[in-house]
């Protein structure tokens, strides 16, 4: 019953969000597009990071491949936007499968750093490719249609979230959770860990690449440093972990909340915005280490003791 109410609320919220371009100011719509895309990225990260427990720093590579795939298809081949998106997504999925096989064998910090290194390598490689405009970047045709981009981003976020909802009740999702809790035990009970992890990686790649493609066409300019930006990947992780990794709506709520906070800070106290942002991260990690989803579950019972409890379980 409670679950049903939560989903009803989520559906109403999605519909309300869909109406924003009709009533909101252009600035709000633009803020909305970038925030919805960030929420999509956080949700896509949730599949590999939250469910499978693999701290990927390579999702910004998928985002970048999506951006460049779309841009190259539109500029160099003259294909329409939709085909470009599909090409970018296909590129990212192929890359995820090819690179996932060796890299997903690594665990913990080692996986995190290998994917971090991949992002660095991609920046350098793309900066040297003629077809990708080297380090100058590519300029896409201008399309004035913030409403279209907004609805597209919202649709993508809903699609990603529905996929995660399906995942949470599927064999694949349970397998990924088993891998997160104990990979050896999962393998012993017959989970094909490699195939499951590569699947999760490819799913994350697919949605991240679509977000990248939409962003590229909206912003009309991409260059290697911004398309493969690692701090974007850090943002995804922060948003997903803040919201609650491994939950269904947590990463979306975390992303919307954090993006709004940082936007408000940027307008109210422009110079100190990143300072506050840093403090919020530190405080959130200390007092609510399992994210908003866990706060929503346990705070009503424990009240203020919740925060003390968290510190007590995790301190030395």
């Amino acid at each position, binding site marked *: 019953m409670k679950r049903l109410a939560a989903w009803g609320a989520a559906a109403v919220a999605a519909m309300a969000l869909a109406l924003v371009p009709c009533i909101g100011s252009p600035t709000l719509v633009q803020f909305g597009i970038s925030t919805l895309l960030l929420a999509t990225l956080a949700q896509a990260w949730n599949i590999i990071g939250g469910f499978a427990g693999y701290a990927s720093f390579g999702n910004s590579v998928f985002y970048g491949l999506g951006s460049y795939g779309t841009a190259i298809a539109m500029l160099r081949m003259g294909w329409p936007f939709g085909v470009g998106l599909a090409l970018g997504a296909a590129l990212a999925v192929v890359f995820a499968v090819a690179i996932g096989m060796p890299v997903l064998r690594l665990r913990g910090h080692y996986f995190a750093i290998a994917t971090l290194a991949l992002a*660095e390598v991609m920046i*350098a490689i793309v900066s040297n490719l003629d077809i990708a405009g080297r380090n100058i970047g590519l300029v896409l045709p201008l399309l004035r249609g913030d409403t279209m981009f907004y609805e597209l981003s919202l649709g993508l976020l809903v699609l990603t979230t529905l996929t995660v909802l399906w995942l949470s009740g599927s064999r694949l999702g349970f397998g990924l959770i088993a891998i997160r809790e104990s990979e050896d035990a999962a393998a012993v009970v017959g989970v094909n860990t490699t195939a499951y992890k590569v699947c999760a990686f490819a799913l994350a790649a697919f949605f991240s690449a679509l977000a990248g493609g939409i962003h590229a066409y909206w912003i009309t300019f991409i260059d290697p440093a911004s398309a493969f930006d690692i701090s974007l990947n850090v943002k995804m*992780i922060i948003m997903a972990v803040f919201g609650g990794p491994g939950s269904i709506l947590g990463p979306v709520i975390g992303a919307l909340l954090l993006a709004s906070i940082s936007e408000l800070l940027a307008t109210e106290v422009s110079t100190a915005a*990143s300072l506050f942002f840093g403090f919020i991260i*530190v405080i959130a*990690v200390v007092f609510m*280490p399992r994210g908003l989803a866990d706060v929503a579950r346990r705070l009503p019972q424990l009240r203020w003791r919740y925060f003390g409890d968290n510190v007590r379980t995790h301190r*030395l």
Partner: protein
Amino acid sequence: MLLLLQVLANGALLGGLYALMALGLALVWGVLNIVNLAHGAFIMLGAYVCYYLFTLAHMDPFAALPVAMLLLFCLGYALQRGVLNLIIRAPMFNTLLITFGFEVVITFLAQIVFSADFRAINPDYAGANVTLTGVTVPLVRLAAFAVALGLTAALSLLLNRTRVGRAIRACAQDLVAARLHGVEPRHIYALTFGLGAALAGAAGGLYGIVSQINPYIGGALTAKSFAICIIGGLENPFGVVVGGLFLGIVESLTSVYVGATYADVASFGILVLVLIVRPTGLLGRTT
């Protein structure tokens, strides 16, 4: 042939400094299992301490290194004792996130206090060099290299020959057993993190002497230190030195013979390969 020798010499000298940068990260990672994303920011702070001691107090930059190390040690000790000890048993994401939070705060404050301008520590003897069989060796880089190796040896002695060092290694191996033998982990953890920060401070001072600094250099230096830790392994300080030398030499070879833009492809490509072939590092033990 002479060019090759010169390139190798440059790479090795750079590599010594790289090794010192990575040493603190490796120590903290190996003992506390924290990958400190603020490590590069600590290096940046150390560089600014030396810069201001040199420009305002007219101290010799090499003499300013101990001051930078002391200040960074205090900062590291306080951060671990006050904040990081609170979340040490939380999942890995959380320690990554919180140190990233530190990095954001430190970089922001540095940009306010120090301004975003590029700075360099330029003592009178900055241009001096010696020529050995045709290979030019800048004296400052040679001195930085020597300091880096000296500090590595000092850390190795500290870990292997002193009571505190034994306590640090005990905490890394088995926390429960260490506690049963009377080790106070809160203090030892803070001490270890402080030592890591002090090493970053020294690396920063040397980096400021051989290169330019601004408040944003931290992120790239953290990534580079990571790469070195992986290549060298975490078990032994001298492994980190080998990792640093390797990376320095590979980078200078690629920038001369392939192109400067490929230096990062080479170093990070090697990192990925090493991880795939030997996940415990080139010199690490296979488990």
